[in-house]
């Protein structure tokens, strides 16, 4: 069964269809979920190649668990984010530091050359500051402010209380603000 952009089939339903042999469901899940989890892994690891590996590994685990998936217990995205978080933690433990110059430049968007460079510089500045945060704060800030998830879902992903998420996000944002202070003008931000 083909799924076009207008098809609003739930992730869980697609997973059941995949488990029953529907290859189109796998393609749809891949297109729908991979950009999200890869983007998240990139923000946590600061490295695109590693983020791709993590995304592939997380999706492979999803395919393997499809037949045993317990419907109605957890959202597919919540489960995937948790897997990605664990995989990132493992990688960060193996190599504790990521040098800033190893961070790949983000892909160019539709903006002009100057705007594009400035956006890349801002994005790299934020990524550098994120890399300097403690891992749990980084994860909470990325899930809240870049993935734009709600605190209860973040709590489920990170296995902590909603209050703990709020605290991690607040501390993370304070540290980011301090880190990026003084760079706003260099990066082309204005206060108007």
């Amino acid at each position, binding site marked *: 069964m083909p799924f076009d952009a207008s098809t609003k089939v739930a992730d869980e*339903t697609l997973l*059941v269809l*995949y*488990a*029953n*042999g529907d*290859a189109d469901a*796998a*393609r749809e*899940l*891949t*297109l729908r979920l*991979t*950009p999200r989890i*890869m*983007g998240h892994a*990139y*923000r946590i690891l600061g490295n*695109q190649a590693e*983020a*791709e590996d993590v*995304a*592939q590994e997380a*999706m*492979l685990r999803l*395919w*393997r668990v*499809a*037949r045993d998936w317990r*419907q*109605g217990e957890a959202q597919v995205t919540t489960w995937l984010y948790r897997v990605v978080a664990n995989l990132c933690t493992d990688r960060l433990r193996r190599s504790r530091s990521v040098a800033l110059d190893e961070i*790949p430049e*983000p*892909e160019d*968007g539709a903006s002009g050359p100057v705007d594009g460079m400035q*956006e*890349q510089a*801002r*994005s790299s*500045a*934020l*990524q550098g500051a994120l890399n300097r945060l403690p891992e749990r704060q980084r994860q909470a800030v990325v899930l809240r*402010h*870049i993935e*734009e998830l709600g605190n209860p879902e973040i709590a489920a992903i990170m296995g902590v209380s909603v209050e703990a998420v709020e605290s991690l996000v607040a501390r993370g*944002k304070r540290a*980011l*603000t301090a880190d*990026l202070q003084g760079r*706003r003008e260099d990066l082309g*931000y204005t*206060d108007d």
Partner: protein
Amino acid sequence: MTDKPTQTDPLDQYFADARQNTPQPSTDLLARIVEDAVSTQKSSEGELRYTVDDTPRGVLASLLRQLGGWPTLAGLSTASVAGLWLGLSAPELLVAATQGVMQADEAVYAIEFEVESYFDFSEGAL
């Protein structure tokens, strides 16, 4: 008291830019992931498949599930109707049904049974 204009969090702009500049998966990566999906699917072909869970969640549905489902309920209904019929049916019908089951010789014994020849109920006999 003077109302101050709400200040935007300066980090919001960074976050918005980051969302715009998140690297996208390459077509190579997407192809590898779909390939993984297909090979995982093939390796588990023939195993028990499962369906979307559409089990009714109501109290009656739950009771029905605990009893064993519709087949059990059908058996239970038949037994109940049969019991009701036995209870309401006329005695003649019951006798006829009983005689149908019993042997003819047993019926003769029952008729020829004489209480006096086996038991002495007279006063002082015991």
